[in-house]
């Protein structure tokens, strides 16, 4: 029983990272319908940047900020150079898939050439453990969960309360009409990509803190992050948090009960069952393109 409780709590931390990885995709793919297969490469790039800056002697907070900025810049470059030129194509969605798939492979292998195949981890001041009557949590995991909670509350407020969120929704729903009423459509899309990539970067930094980062980290999360957005339903940003926690716990508990090698398979099977039973996702969010 204690084993399962322990697995559930570490699963929550794992789920928090998944949630950060997929949150940006919830805007980019869930709202704009853009398939960005390079999205999770932002995680790896942010973590590697943070580790490099930290190794150069920068304080922890600076390293984290630099990592997030690196990811945000990559997100902006992706949108500007590789996605925007494709929007006029007939088969824009599939073309974006292929272009970003190519970009993903390029980033991964450039990183392999430059950084090597050795996994590295982000050494931070967040050491120590918290004992909750037998269930042990590390401080970095607690911080991760707290950050995920803050990010999702902020995202919720951003998309429902702020002008920017309304502009994002309007742009996603009908770019032409949005432009007509004076929304700077291009800039809104660009900022959405920057925010999405930055959030993924934050997830990557935590991943590098708790586990370790190597050139394959982006590929590890790629399918999973799309799975999460599809599972939660289009535009359902809070749903992503719930689905991430569900999958994180599934993975962790499967690892505790059976064998670590069956973790990923359990996650994939949960996804397959869900997408077959409910192709529309677990819940239609309030932020769907059809109803604002």
């Amino acid at each position: 029983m204690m084993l399962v409780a322990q697995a559930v709590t570490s699963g929550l931390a794992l789920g928090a990272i998944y949630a950060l990885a997929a949150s940006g995709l919830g805007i980019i793919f869930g709202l704009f319908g853009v398939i960005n297969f390079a999205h999770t490469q932002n995680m790896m790039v942010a973590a590697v940047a943070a580790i490099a800056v930290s190794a150069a002697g920068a304080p922890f907070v600076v390293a984290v900020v630099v990592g997030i900025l690196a990811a945000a810049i990559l997100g902006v470059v992706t949108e500007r150079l590789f996605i925007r030129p494709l929007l006029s194509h007939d088969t824009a969605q599939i073309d974006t898939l292929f272009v970003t798939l190519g970009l993903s492979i390029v980033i991964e292998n450039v990183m392999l050439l430059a950084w090597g195949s050795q996994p590295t981890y982000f050494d931070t001041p967040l050491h120590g453990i918290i004992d909750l009557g037998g269930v042990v949590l590390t401080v970095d995991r607690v911080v991760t969960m707290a950050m995920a909670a803050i990010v999702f509350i902020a995202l919720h407020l951003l998309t429902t309360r702020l002008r920017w969120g309304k502009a994002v929704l309007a742009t996603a729903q009908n770019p032409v009409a949005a432009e007509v009423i004076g929304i700077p459509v291009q800039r809104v899309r660009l900022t959405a990509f920057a925010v999405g990539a930055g959030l993924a970067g934050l997830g990557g930094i935590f991943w590098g803190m708790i586990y370790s980062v190597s050139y394959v980290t982006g590929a590890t999360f790629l399918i999973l992050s799309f799975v999460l957005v599809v599972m939660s339903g289009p535009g359902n940003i809070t749903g992503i948090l719930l689905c991430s926690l569900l999958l994180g716990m599934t993975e962790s508990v499967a690892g505790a009960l059976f064998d670590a090698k069956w973790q990923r398979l359990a996650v994939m099977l949960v996804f397959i069952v869900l997408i077959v039973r409910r192709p529309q996702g677990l819940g239609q969010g309030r932020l769907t393109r059809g109803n604002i």
Partner: protein
Amino acid sequence: MTEMVDPDSPAHIGRRRKEYLWSGAGFGFLAAVPLVVTDQYLLFMLSLSLIYAIIALGLNLTNGYLGMLNLSVAGQVALGAYTCAILALRSVPIPLAIMASVIFGAAVAAIIFLIFARLHGFFFGLATIAAAEVIRLLIRNLDTITNGVRGLRGFAHLTDSAETTYLALVLCLAAIMLLSVLTVHSSIGLRWRAIRENRDKALSLGIPVTKFQFGGFVLSGAIMSFGGALLAPLLQYIEPNIAGLSILVQTVLMVALGGGGTLYGPVIGALAITLLPEFLRLANELRLVIYGLTLILVVLTLPGGILGFVIAKLRVRRRVAGL
């Protein structure tokens, strides 16, 4: 996209005959290569490119002609390769092992399609990636049968010499090409294209869309598993990462570069993509970087691929000449 012509009209049959002649000449040229090339390694690379051409042809049926987003390449290839290798290690003759792989590949493709039949577009694509990932994880984890991450080696070769292997593969590619040509030029192919151009209209015309998609998906899966089954005895070593993302990128690139929805484009793409990095003598990581960059460039600047580009140019010339 491709114009819809009555496949039995006389003008079309004339053009078809010319196409068959060109295609026969092309395969004759491919078969004559060992007369000139004696270098064993080069022959191996040529053989490899023929197998990739088969895989690309398989993918092209669903993605190019049916307009489906089938991303299960890696899974189907790995399935074929592992079935063939496991049977060959239990001293089943190679041809039988390959046949078994094709049947198994087709069966798994049928199961994948039946599970995900309700999904369309990207959601179907994502589900097929998930299916490929399940296949990869099963191969990695069922180590009593597949030897896990250590991979399998020590099974029989395709034939005794590099030359005969190459010729056998030319024959295999010719057979798959003939199968594709006959299917695409038949009334089945016409309906496939109708589904690709406008799914709802095809439905309203009474074409059983799901049934045709099922047939195309299973055929495509069987061909890709066939390619995988040929891959194992040629490479002599397979490991679970054969089902990784890089083979998906590679095959998608071959189809896109040559020209999706054309019969010969994927073959041209496969030959170019496998042979060029070899002539440039690139390290593996650099090869993948170049693949990625090429894929980006092709989709951004050459949407119809090489063949689409050439056909468009030819059409303009014909139109200018008043033909």
